[in-house]
């Protein structure tokens, strides 16, 4: 074989690994407050459930990744407890946007021949131990060096840190509190059709606007729930995934974590416009690599740490024009029965808080046509969906072909992933 000048062009695979990897297993614990379990125990349940969902055994898993922020257990512990010997593992520091980022890393390490199948988990007692809202022991932690520039001003929790981004969007584009509240209304509607959601009550715009103010522009009901739970997804090559008994979700593209200029959590305000978030940059990787655009997507999973984060990301990933996010989230588009529902399980606002992974799990279920709602099970054990989205009913979307997950770390950083239905 003659080596030519173009030998650095890889022609044996589709561009950017598009369609070469899949999520073939999903697992979770219940979403609750008061787990009465360690994060190690929660993780063991979630990873074990995902292995069972994939129809695999411990011997089939040889890679493991996890993310946490000093509040969880590490991969070697969980692998040990499940009898898994690892050829690759690492635990990273991170919260929101880690899920999609780690899927990308899993694809990379499998592609590099370092392992074959990777379990990615997040285990947290976000209510019972390290509270996600920043109250309890986290609120009294000593403050050093760089942190003085914000925490000393009572500018510490996620809501407080992000508030200037949210407020400036209202100023720049005339976004109203009513428009943003529609995100909670939609997600609570979805959660009411999700038996495992922590909050299953449907809320109105007035409910959101009359809930107590936490940090303007955030009312209580603009903020996510704190729960205890663990979640897991299993990433493998498509050819291996097709040996699994259930349908896999094919990974079309991953972007991130992508940052804004000067995009760390404390510095991103130096780079404007501050009402623009990292999705503005991530979309230039996500859509070309996936070979589709926002108009092709059937369901979104835009991270809802707050109502605003869902809106900002949908806008900056191009689901609507810049500045029109308020209209987009309030005109029915993002609700079940609408053109492109968002967070059909209820997301972080209602189902439970997992730093993003439950939204990926939901989209895998939607692509399989197996949303775990209250619809009756058929003889084959699969839900017989009614597509009646009234309270307590169905939450499966018809004929889902493509989903997009938009992970949020903070205004300056995010990750995203496009998945497709497997027709084989």
């Amino acid at each position, binding site marked *: 074989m003659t080596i030519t000048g173009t030998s650095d062009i890889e022609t044996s695979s589709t561009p950017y690994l598009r369609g070469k990897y899949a999520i073939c297993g999903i697992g979770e614990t219940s979403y609750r407050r008061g787990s009465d379990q360690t994060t190690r125990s929660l993780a063991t349940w979630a990873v074990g459930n995902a292995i069972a969902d994939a129809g695999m055994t411990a011997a089939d898993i040889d890679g493991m990744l996890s993310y946490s922020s000093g509040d969880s257990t590490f991969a070697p512990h969980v692998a040990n407890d499940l009898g898994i010997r690892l050829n690759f593992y690492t635990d990273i520091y991170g919260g929101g946007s880690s899920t999609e980022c780690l899927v990308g890393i899993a694809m990379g390490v499998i592609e590099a021949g370092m392992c074959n199948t990777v379990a990615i988990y997040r285990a947290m007692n976000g209510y019972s131990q390290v509270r996600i*809202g*920043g*109250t309890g022991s986290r*609120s*009294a932690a*000593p*403050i*050093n*060096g*760089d942190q*003085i*520039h*914000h*925490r*000393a*001003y*009572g*500018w*510490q*929790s996620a*809501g*407080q840190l992000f*508030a*200037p*981004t949210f*407020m*400036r969007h*209202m*100023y720049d584009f005339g976004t*109203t*509190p009513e428009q943003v509240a529609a995100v909670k209304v939609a997600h609570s509607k979805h959660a009411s059709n999700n038996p495992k959601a922590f909050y299953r009550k449907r809320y109105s715009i007035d409910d959101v*606007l009359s809930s*107590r*103010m*936490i*940090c*303007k*522009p955030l009312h209580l009901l603009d903020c996510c729930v704190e729960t205890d739970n663990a979640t897991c997804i299993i990433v493998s090559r498509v050819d291996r995934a097709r040996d699994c008994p259930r349908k896999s979700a094919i990974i079309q593209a991953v972007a991130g974590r992508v940052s804004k200029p*000067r995009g760390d959590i*404390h*510095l991103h*305000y*130096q*780079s*404007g*416009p*501050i009402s623009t978030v990292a999705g503005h940059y991530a979309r230039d990787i996500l859509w070309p690599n996936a070979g589709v655009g926002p108009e092709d997507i059937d369901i979104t999973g835009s991270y809802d740490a707050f109502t605003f984060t869902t809106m900002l990301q949908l806008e900056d990933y191009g689901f609507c024009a810049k500045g029109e996010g308020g209209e987009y989230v309030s005109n029915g588009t993002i609700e079940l029965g609408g053109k492109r529902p968002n967070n059909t399980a209820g997301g972080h606002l209602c189902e439970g808080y997992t730093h993003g992974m439950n939204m990926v799990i939901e989209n895998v279920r939607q692509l399989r046509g197996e949303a775990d709602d209250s619809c009756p099970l058929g003889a084959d054990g699969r839900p017989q969906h009614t597509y009646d989205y009234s309270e307590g009913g169905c939450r499966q979307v018809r004929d889902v072909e493509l989903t997009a997950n938009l992970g949020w770390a903070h205004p300056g950083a995010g990750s995203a992933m496009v998945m497709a239905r497997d027709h084989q």
Partner: protein
Amino acid sequence: MPVQGEYMGMLLTIDDLDGENRAYFDYCAGGEFRLQRSRNSGLLRYPPTTACPWTGERESDWVVVEGKGTVHSYGEVHHAIQRAFKGKVPYLILLVELDTQKGRPSEHDALRVGGNLVASDGSFASPEQIRQVGIGTRVRMVMSEVAEGLALPQWTVDEQAEQPLSPWRYPQE
């Protein structure tokens, strides 16, 4: 010895080895607002860092910067997270765009400095004062001594400046 002080129930520490923050807060304690200016690019940066974020150069000088600017955005805290702040609600977190270097080195760049809205004596602003302030309000910096040898930059309404007729505030009061 590290600079250390107790403020609002928080133990604030600046370690000796944290040269940039040490210099910044030492100037604050002396009543001066100084930022690093890169020797070659001439660009100021905030907060203190080791390199110029636009050129990567590590040589800089601490220069006095005028503490005046416009409220670029804000958050208004009604449910405090840190215990000692619970007695201060509502309080404002201001993101102030300095006049100095606004729109440089590119259109949307600016030195944006955080802080609380305080009265001219450095005490937390009253609810009445808070209701007068929003996006567009002109503010000036006051150095607030919070512990022995430790001061924080804070913001108060600039009485000398021309103010907008009605600064933009979140619609629900």
